[in-house]
């Protein structure tokens, strides 16, 4: 019988999948952190090693129960290798880290595979490959100065490597404090219990003399593990929380050292209680709150007229707003998860390219909407890839340019009003403005002799297929990538801003709305219809009478704004809106041109009236109408009617394309 048909199996597996994915994600970051410590001659973070060991151990245990043999094998051999690292018998080199990273990759892949097929037998070849590598690495000689120690208590550690101790001793530069003296090794339980971990974290924050000293943690590593305080004693768990599977492990693993080093954030040591909730239920809750807000709006209007000072009504309004805020905050998650994955990317890419770079992460606690966090990964991968491939110079070039051999990449997230800004900075060579221009002229993207401001030149990088690189590498340079970034970010109403100084580096900023669930919208009346446009896209609005409209024969219209001409769209025509009731000729024309800053530049749209501003819950377009152009969703107005949310990006594209038909350029 297929495992997927066994409800009990499926239940255990699902729990396993969620838990393991989370831990494996952290495992990767820890591995990179360990490698960095090694490279910089610092002692390795034994807490990370312990957590890694437990991760593999847990995966092995549960996978065994689920009869996922391939998964068990890989986890087992990774665990073996780590057991030797943990005992201080083996100092991990780059090869070990790579192999362990591959093991993590495999486990993630196998979990994904099993969730589809219920079985991991199809992954046998990959598993063998990884197991072979791990076993071979495990057979390498141990560090000479402890070769004489008896084998460690870990039963799993009896791999082929266990007998290879006395082979050619190699010298390692690690401080001797790293190796646990016999006595203290005994004091350390094979599986530290959670209270023990909690005690450790308390002591790291400097409060007590550490019982953790028995773990012989070098003091130098203290500032590098700021996140471990979230480990919690089981006693603090709420009764409703799902039981922790055994063996126990800390909820969060220590963060990699780079992030900790730059932003040491002592957190309060009070254990945080966490409840895992199905995202669909939160969405349903949010939906209902949205309804409540609308109902409250309607009530306020209906009752408010009769009872302008009703205390009950005021109370209702206040409670509703608070409820909305709280619900919104439930959906907010830190960008940490996405940022963490970038360490591995930077490591692998720089290695491949023969470059040296350190990734500094700032503000990984910054929270954004859950739906957004998932869509940020892809754009960031492309941008970092680009920064490493094109931005950063080779170590030799950097030295020649009088820079530090090692380049710096900075990944920073921060809040700005209703937006989140995510910046990727490199201190590489910067963008060669002239080369970009030359390439654009070559490709006919701009006419000869036309000059562009810097910002416009950099936007050319986002043209599909644009690349200034002569030689295509296997990483980037084929010109795909940056246009994907732009499309991705625009999909959630964000934008990408580039700035660059030759010789000093490039900064790419993703500006995205805090949430995809609520829009701060401007309400526009067109005929009898009310449309909503996200405030983030509104540049300004000017009464029609104060602008001038130019007709391009057969290809649309242009509107002038401070000397430049941009495409002009009449929404009533574009959206085929029924004409408004005949207006009193005496009444002055209220028509307003609203300028939207869209993906393809500014566009002016003509509306009959600007009705005001409103925060509303965004509803996706019903799937059946998903193809409707220039609408990114809809929302419900105060009177209960549906309003379409206009997509300024699409309008700016429509404006450009209709102009393009006539072969005209501003």
């Amino acid at each position, binding site marked *: 019988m297929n495992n997927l048909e066994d409800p009990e199996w499926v239940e255990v597996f699902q729990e396993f999948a969620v838990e393991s994915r989370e831990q494996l994600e952290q495992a990767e970051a820890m591995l990179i952190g360990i490698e960095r410590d090694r490279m910089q001659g610092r002692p390795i973070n034994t807490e990370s090693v312990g957590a890694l060991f437990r991760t593999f151990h847990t995966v092995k245990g549960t996978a065994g129960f689920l009869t996922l043999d391939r998964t068990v094998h890989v986890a087992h051999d990774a665990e073996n290798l780590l057991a030797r690292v943990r005992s201080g018998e083996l100092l991990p080199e780059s090869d070990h880290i790579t192999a362990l990273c591959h093991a993590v990759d495999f486990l993630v892949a196998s979990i994904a595979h099993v969730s589809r097929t219920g079985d991991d037998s199809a992954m046998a070849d990959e598993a063998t490959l990884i197991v072979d590598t791990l076993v071979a690495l495990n057979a390498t000689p141990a560090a000479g100065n402890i070769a004489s120690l008896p084998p460690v208590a870990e039963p799993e550690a009896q791999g082929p490597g266990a007998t290879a101790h006395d082979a050619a001793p190699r010298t390692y530069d690690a401080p001797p404090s790293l190796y646990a003296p016999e006595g203290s090794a005994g004091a350390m339980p094979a599986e530290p219990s959670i209270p023990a971990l909690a005690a450790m974290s308390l002591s790291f924050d400097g409060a007590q003399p550490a019982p953790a000293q028995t773990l012989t943690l070098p003091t130098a590593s203290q500032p590098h593990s700021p996140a471990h305080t979230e480990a919690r004693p089981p006693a603090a768990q709420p009764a409703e929380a799902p039981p922790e599977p055994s063996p126990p492990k800390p909820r969060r693993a220590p963060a990699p050292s780079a992030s900790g080093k730059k932003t040491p954030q002592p957190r309060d040591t009070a254990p945080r209680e966490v409840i895992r909730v199905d995202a669909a239920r939160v969405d349903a809750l949010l939906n*209902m709150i949205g*309804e409540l807000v609308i109902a409250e709006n309607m009530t306020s209007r209906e009752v408010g007229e009769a009872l302008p000072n009703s205390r009950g009504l005021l109370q209702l309004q206040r409670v509703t707003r608070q409820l909305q805020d709280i619900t919104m905050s439930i959906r907010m998650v830190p960008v940490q998860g996405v940022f963490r994955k970038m360490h591995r990317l930077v490591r692998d890419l720089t290695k491949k390219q023969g470059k040296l770079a350190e990734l500094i992460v700032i503000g990984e606690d910054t929270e954004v909407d859950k739906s957004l966090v998932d869509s940020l990964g892809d754009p960031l991968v492309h941008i970092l890839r680009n920064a490493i491939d094109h931005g950063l110079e080779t170590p030799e070039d950097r030295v020649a340019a009088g820079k530090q051999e090692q380049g710096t990449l900075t990944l920073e997230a921060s809040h700005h009003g209703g937006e989140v800004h995510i910046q990727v900075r490199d201190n590489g060579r910067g963008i060669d403005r002239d080369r970009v221009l030359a390439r654009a002229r070559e490709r006919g993207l701009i006419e000869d002799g036309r000059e562009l401001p810097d910002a416009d030149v950099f936007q050319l990088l986002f043209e599909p297929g644009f690349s200034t690189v002569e030689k295509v590498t296997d990483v980037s340079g084929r010109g795909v990538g940056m246009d994907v970034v732009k499309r991705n970010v625009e999909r959630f109403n964000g934008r990408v801003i580039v700035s660059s100084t030759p010789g000093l580096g490039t900064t790419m900023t993703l500006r995205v709305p805090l949430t995809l669930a609520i829009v701060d919208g401007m309400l526009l009346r067109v005929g009898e219809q009310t449309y909503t446009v996200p405030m983030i896209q509104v540049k300004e609005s000017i009464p029609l009478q104060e602008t001038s409209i130019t007709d391009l024969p057969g290809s649309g219209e242009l509107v002038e704004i401070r000397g430049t001409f941009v495409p002009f769209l009449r929404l009533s025509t574009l959206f085929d809106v029924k004409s408004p009731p005949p207006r009193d000729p005496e009444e002055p024309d209220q028509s307003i041109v609203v300028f939207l800053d869209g993906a393809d530049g500014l566009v002016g749209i003509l509306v009959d009236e600007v009705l005001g501003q409103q925060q509303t819950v965004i*509803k996706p377009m019903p799937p*059946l109408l998903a193809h409707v152009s220039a609408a990114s969703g*809809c929302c419900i107005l105060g009177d209960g009617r*549906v309003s*379409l949310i206009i997509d300024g990006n699409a309008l700016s594209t429509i404006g450009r394309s209709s102009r393009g038909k006539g072969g005209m350029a501003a």
Partner: protein
Amino acid sequence: MSQSAATVDLLSPSLELERRGEADDEERAVPTIRHLAFRLRGRPFAIEIRHVLEIDGLQPVTPVHDLPSYVRGLMNLRGHVVPLVDAGERIGLGRREYDERTCIVLLQLDGNEVGVAVDRVTRVVDLPETLFSGNGERPRQDFVRGVYREGDETVLCLDPSYLARVGRGRGQDLPAQEGANQLAPREER
């Protein structure tokens, strides 16, 4: 009505349904499918009730561009934004202004909710399963699943998924070729 008599009855493509209505205790003997009967432009129709979530009064509709004219737009049904399809126009019976008897039948198909405007809802009927199993004459239009006789009227059972399918673009996917020549609106009695 014995079971054998019913079987004989069911073999004919159109059925005398009034007779069946009286025999409540024998409902179980013949597997039936419950339908909602309604009228469009004076003609009787029915739709399988399994897909009907609820029946609502008319709501304010927000017109949406880029859609065939039988999709009237979007409306808010207690917080759910659903498209409104005019059933009569969809099957080629022409446009008709809505009045106080116009009802919205909320359908759920493949997880999508679609409101379907009908001129008025009449009643709920149980139709024998065999009506749809292919024993009878196959209806020619792809939006008709079955046909039965009720009194002196012929009732068409409509395919809900046809009603809920929304075409693209203004004026495209017009229902005219699909059956307007066979169906003509009648004066409401």
